[in-house]
C-alpha cells in the first residue's frame, strides 16, 4: 500500500488499523513486555496505582498491568481461534449447501434455522452447563453457534455465483463440485467473507468476554479481560475505576475492528453516502 492510498483511508479506519496492529504486537510480545508473570502474586491485594505496580494489583495481589498485557494474548488469541474455526465450519458447509442443492442443503439450512431461532447466548449457556466448563468446550460451542451466520452468508453469496454462466460452462466441461467451489465460487465470494470475518470476530470476542465476565469463560488463573472485570468489580463501589480498564481494552479493540470493517464495507459497496 502506498502513502497516497493510505491517505485516502478515513481517519476512523486509520485509527482502527493502528490500534489493531498495536494489540497484535502486545499480544505476541506479551512475555517480553509484561513486567510480571500472568498468575504471579506480587504483593498485597488491591494496591493503588503507582510505585512498583503501575496500575496497582488485583483481588489476589497480582500485577494489574501484567495481567492486562497477558490478557491481550489470551482473550484475543482464543477469540481469533474461535472465529477461524467458525469460518472454516461455516464456509465449508455453506459452500456445500450451495453446490449440492437437494437434501444436503435442506438438512443444513433447517439445522441452522433451529440454531438461529434462539439468541446464541442462551444456547451457549445451555451447552456449557451440559458440557461443563473448559476452554475447548467454550471454543467449540461458540464456533458452532457462530458458524451458523457464516453459513448463511457463504450459502447466499455462493448461490448467486452458482447460477452464473461460467459455472454452467465449467460443469459442462466436466469439472467436479469441489473444483468449481475452489476455482469459480471461492474467489468471487472472498470480499464479503472478509468483511464478515471482522464482524464475526467482534461478536465472538464480545461473547467470550461476556462469558468470562459471567464466570463461565477462560478458566482461572488465565488472565482474560472479562474475568478481570468480574474479579475486581467490587472496587467500583469504592469509586476506583481500575476494573474499567480491562473492559476498556475490550471496547477499544472492537471499536477499532468495527471502524475498519465499516470502511471496508463502504468501499466494497462503492457508495459515497
Amino acid at each position: 500500500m502506498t502513502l497516497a492510498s493510505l491517505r485516502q483511508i478515513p481517519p476512523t479506519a486509520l485509527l482502527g488499523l493502528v490500534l489493531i496492529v498495536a494489540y497484535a504486537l502486545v499480544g505476541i510480545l506479551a512475555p517480553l513486555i509484561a513486567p510480571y508473570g500472568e498468575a504471579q502474586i506480587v504483593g498485597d491485594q488491591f494496591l493503588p496505582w503507582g510505585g512498583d505496580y503501575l496500575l496497582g494489583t488485583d483481588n489476589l495481589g497480582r500485577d494489574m498491568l501484567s495481567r492486562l498485557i497477558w490478557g491481550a494474548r489470551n482473550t484475543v488469541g482464543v477469540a481469533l481461534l474461535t472465529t477461524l474455526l467458525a469460518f472454516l465450519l461455516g464456509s465449508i458447509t455453506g459452500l456445500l449447501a450451495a453446490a449440492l442443492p437437494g437434501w444436503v442443503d435442506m438438512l443444513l439450512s433447517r439445522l441452522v434455522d433451529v440454531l438461529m431461532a434462539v439468541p446464541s447466548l442462551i444456547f451457549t449457556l445451555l451447552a456449557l452447563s451440559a458440557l461443563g466448563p473448559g476452554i475447548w468446550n467454550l471454543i467449540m460451542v461458540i464456533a458452532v453457534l457462530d458458524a451458523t451466520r457464516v453459513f448463511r452468508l457463504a450459502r447466499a453469496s455462493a448461490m448467486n455465483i452458482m447460477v452464473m454462466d461460467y459455472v454452467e460452462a465449467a460443469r459442462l466441461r466436466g469439472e467436479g463440485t469441489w473444483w468449481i467451489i475452489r476455482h469459480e465460487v471461492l474467489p468471487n465470494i472472498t470480499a464479503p467473507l472478509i468483511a464478515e470475518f471482522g464482524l464475526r470476530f467482534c461478536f465472538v470476542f464480545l461473547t467470550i468476554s461476556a462469558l468470562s465476565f459471567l464466570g463461565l469463560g477462560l478458566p482461572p488463573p488465565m488472565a482474560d479481560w472479562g474475568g478481570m472485570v468480574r474479579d475486581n468489580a467490587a472496587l467500583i463501589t469504592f469509586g476506583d475505576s481500575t476494573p474499567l480498564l480491562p473492559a476498556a481494552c475490550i471496547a477499544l479493540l472492537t471499536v477499532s475492528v468495527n471502524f475498519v470493517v465499516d470502511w471496508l464495507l463502504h468501499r466494497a459497496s462503492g457508495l459515497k453516502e
Partner: protein
Amino acid sequence: MSGGPRDHPLRRMILMRLGIGLFTLLVISVLVFLAVSLLPGDIAQQILGQSATTETVAALRRELGLDQPLITRYFAWIGGILTGDFGRSLANGRPVADLLAARLGNTMLLAAYAAVIAVPLAVTLGLLAALWRGSWFDRCVNVISLSAISFPEFFIAYILMFWLSVRLGWFPSMADPGANPSLADLLGKAFLPAVTLVLVVTAHMMRMTRAAVVNVLGAPYIAMARLKGVSRWRIITRHALPNALAPIINVIALNVAWLITGVVIVEVVFVYPGLGQLMVDSVSNRDMPVVQACALIFAAVYVLLNLIADVLAIATNPRLLHPR
C-alpha cells in the same frame, strides 16, 4: 382475493406463522431436553458424585425415571412443563416453577422498561439519520452507535454505575428491589439496568432502522414524488414511512435478541433478581433442570416476539401475503 372472511388471506397467513412458530418451539424443546444427555455419565451420577456406589446411582436413576426410554422421558418432561411442573432444582431441591415465578416478573419488567424507552428513541434517531444522510448529525450518530455496539454490555453498565451511582450518587448501584416494592421504588431501582439496556439496544436498532429507511428512500417512486414537487414532509409520511414500516418492525423484533442477551449480563452486574441471573448461577452449579427451564422460557419469548413481528409486518405490507 375472493372468498368470505373465513379464508381471509391474512388469517390464513397468521395461522401458518403460528404453526411454524409452534413447530420451532417443539424442535427447540427437543434440543433443550437433549442437552442433558450431553452430560458425561448422567444426571444421577452428577448428583451423587464419582464416589457413589453403583446401587445408589441405579436407585436414584429409577427415582428420577432415568431408566425409561428417552422418548418416554421427553413426553413426561414436556407434559410436566405444559402443566407448570418444571421439575426440581438439583442445587436445593425446590420446585423450579417456584424459583422461576419469583423472577420472571422482574425480568419482564426490566425488559419492558428498556423497550418502552428504546424503541421510540431508536426509530426516531434512525429516521432522522436517514433523512439527514451525510450531515454532521448522521456522522455523529453513526460513530456513537458504532461505539456503543462495540462496547461489551458490562462496560457500559459499569461506566454508568461508576459515574451516576458511585460518583454522583443519583441512583442505587444495586438493583435488588427487596420484597413487595412499590412501582415507583421498582422503577427507580431498575433505572440504571434499564438505561444500560436502552443504550445497547438503541444502537443496534437505530442503525438497522436507518438502513431500512435509506433503502426505501432510494426507491424510484420516492424520486418520482420528489420530482413532482411533493413536499419533504409528505414524502416521508405518505410515501416512505408506510413502506419502511415492515422492515422497521422486523428490526425491532431482531433486536429483542440483544435485549435478552443484555438482560442476562445486566442483571448480573446490578445484582437484579431476574431470570438471567438465575440462569447464570444455575449454569455455574450445573443445575440442569433450572437451566433448561430458563433456556426454554427465553427461547419461547424470543420465538413469540418474532412471530408477532412477522404478523405485524405482513399486516402493514399486503404484498407479503403472496410470497413468490
